[in-house]
């Protein structure tokens, strides 16, 4: 009998399809309330850090160089008050086989898919993750399908996403491209059901376990190069996995005093599911359009419980502007001789701003770079922006309006620290968690869980719950 493939029928089979496609049952971690056993879920991958490293060595992932950006640090010192200007280091993740840290995230999932006997893997992604899954699948002889949100209704594709299509296809993957809209999930489910392939979700425990090696390597390399742990690690934040995995890896290395700070491109005002706004943004990831909803509602991802829980680990959340990231991308090329993709330099831009406030003896590590090239180079992106009616000019980045203009800083000293309202985001997270669990009573276990998931004390959580009408 043919299965009913109508939208509603497929969405109703969501849990069943996911269970088959993930090879694991998430229900065993549930408490029945808001809380779930996050650490048990993470432990149940069955892999320790050294196992993950071994899996990654098999496919050439990880062990990327940590480089000191001496000229960029010198530039910071020239524009900062005397004594200020922290040393900036970067983890050159572009050296991974497919050109970004996403290889770490794909490596464990693809390994598991192979081990469990799946014939192929599927991932829903418009970014570097697709190339990473395609590359890992190629190495492990698995079929691969990448589902992208790529075009607007005129069939105009984001150059960066078109490049990812090419790269995935050149690595042997099949690429399914869609116009803008969250119903991509329906197509994704249909493909999972049709093929019986593994869901190489960005948000599975395997994906996050794969990133832990990144944090671990940073701690080890810092100890070797400068004799101590870094003061700050800046991670670009979108879905939360990059930051979560890196922070967990740092903790596993014992670098418990290192602050983990998130950074996103500020795309305030642009609706992520808007057909007309789609091609008016120059960043397809690493922006607030993912960063805020995924931090405040992590469990709306493509798995029942996301392993990426950024608010658990994030000590600060910095916002940068599109024009600033293009500017710093050019600075990295011109001053350090490193041509790297713009989106991966979101965290570098935040580090450049932060370094101006910190003393010269402080160490900031930017935990990624990504490859660049046709489609995902500032020239391609800025040219595309102009063609889509976005004004490109020099000025004060504070005046940038996403979708209307891109303001390249008139001077590097205009790249300043801007904090997102993390307290507000944490409250929003608690509100979403309560809504998702659909409970009228909140247990002590739930409170403990919320404290951990937003990295706050009991008082904060109780006050947030009181605002929601729970009198505890």
């Amino acid at each position, binding site marked *: 009998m043919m299965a009913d493939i109508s939208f509603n029928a497929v969405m109703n089979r969501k849990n069943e399809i996911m269970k088959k496609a993930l090879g694991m049952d998430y229900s065993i971690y549930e408490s029945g309330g808001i809380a779930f056993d996050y650490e048990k879920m993470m432990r149940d991958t069955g892999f320790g850090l050294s196992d993950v490293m071994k899996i990654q060595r098999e496919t050439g992932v990880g062990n990327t160089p940590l480089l000191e950006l001496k000229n960029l640090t010198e*530039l910071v010192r020239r524009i900062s008050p005397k004594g200020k200007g922290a040393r900036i280091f970067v983890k050159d993740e572009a050296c991974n086989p497919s050109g970004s840290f996403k290889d770490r995230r794909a490596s464990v999932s693809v390994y598991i898919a192979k081990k469990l006997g799946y014939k192929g893997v599927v991932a829903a992604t418009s970014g570097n993750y697709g190339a990473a899954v395609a590359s890992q699948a190629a190495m492990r002889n698995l079929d691969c399908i990448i589902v992208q949100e790529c075009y607007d209704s005129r069939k105009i594709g984001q*150059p960066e996403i078109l490049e990812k299509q090419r790269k995935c296809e050149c690595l042997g993957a099949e690429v399914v491209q869609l*116009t803008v809209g969250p119903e991509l999930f329906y197509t994704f489910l249909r493909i999972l059901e049709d093929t019986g392939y593994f869901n190489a979700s960005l948000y599975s425990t395997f994906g996050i376990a794969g990133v832990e090696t990144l944090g671990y390597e940073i701690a080890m390399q810092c100890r070797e190069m400068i004799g101590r742990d870094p003061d700050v690690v800046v991670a670009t934040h979108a879905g939360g996995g990059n930051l979560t995995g890196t922070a967990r890896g740092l903790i596993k290395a014992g670098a418990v005093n290192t602050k983990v700070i998130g950074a996103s491109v500020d795309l305030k005002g642009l609706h992520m599911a*808007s057909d007309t706004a789609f091609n008016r943004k120059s960043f397809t990831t690493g922006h607030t359009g993912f960063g805020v909803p995924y931090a405040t509602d992590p469990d709306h991802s493509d798995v029942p419980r996301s392993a990426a829980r950024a608010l658990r680990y994030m000590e600060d959340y910095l916002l940068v502007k599109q024009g600033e990231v293009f500017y710093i991308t050019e600075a990295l090329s011109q001053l350090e001789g490193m041509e790297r993709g713009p989106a991966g330099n979101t965290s570098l831009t935040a580090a450049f701003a932060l370094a101006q406030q910190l003393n010269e003896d402080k160490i900031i590590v930017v935990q990624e770079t990504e490859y660049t090239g046709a489609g995902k180079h500032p020239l391609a992106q800025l040219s595309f922006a102009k063609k889509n009616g976005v004004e490109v000019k*020099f000025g004060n980045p504070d005046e940038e309006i996403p979708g209307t203009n891109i303001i*390249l800083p008139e001077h590097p000293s205009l790249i300043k620290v801007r904090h997102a309202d993390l307290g507000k985001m944490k409250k929003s997270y608690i509100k979403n968690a309560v809504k998702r669990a659909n409970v009228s009573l909140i247990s002590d276990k739930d409170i403990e869980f919320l404290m951990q998931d937003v990295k706050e004390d009991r008082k904060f959580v109780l006050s947030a719950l009181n605002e929601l009408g729970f009198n505890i």
Partner: protein
Amino acid sequence: MSDAKKGDWVQIHEIVLKPEERTGKLPEDTKKVPLELWVKGFLNHDANLNDMVEITTLTGRIVKGELVSVNPRYEYGFGEEYVPEILKIGRQLRGILKGGDNK
């Protein structure tokens, strides 16, 4: 003669959801347009452009849709025109490092 032969590498187009079938929290502009899909594969029979065709994708899936392109090329690059603003950045930063204007 047909535009494409059986076995040719082609791209097809399919409407997944018509505007009235779309769901979820969508902005007004997106509600008005269909959810469309493109995928590539080997053509299962001779056909002309705009015909409804059947293909076999790289993973062996059989998919039906409208034939839109044969041997589709990659159409992006480094932009249609050079962006001269980029030139200013490197010159300014190198100037600062060499001890020129720093404020």
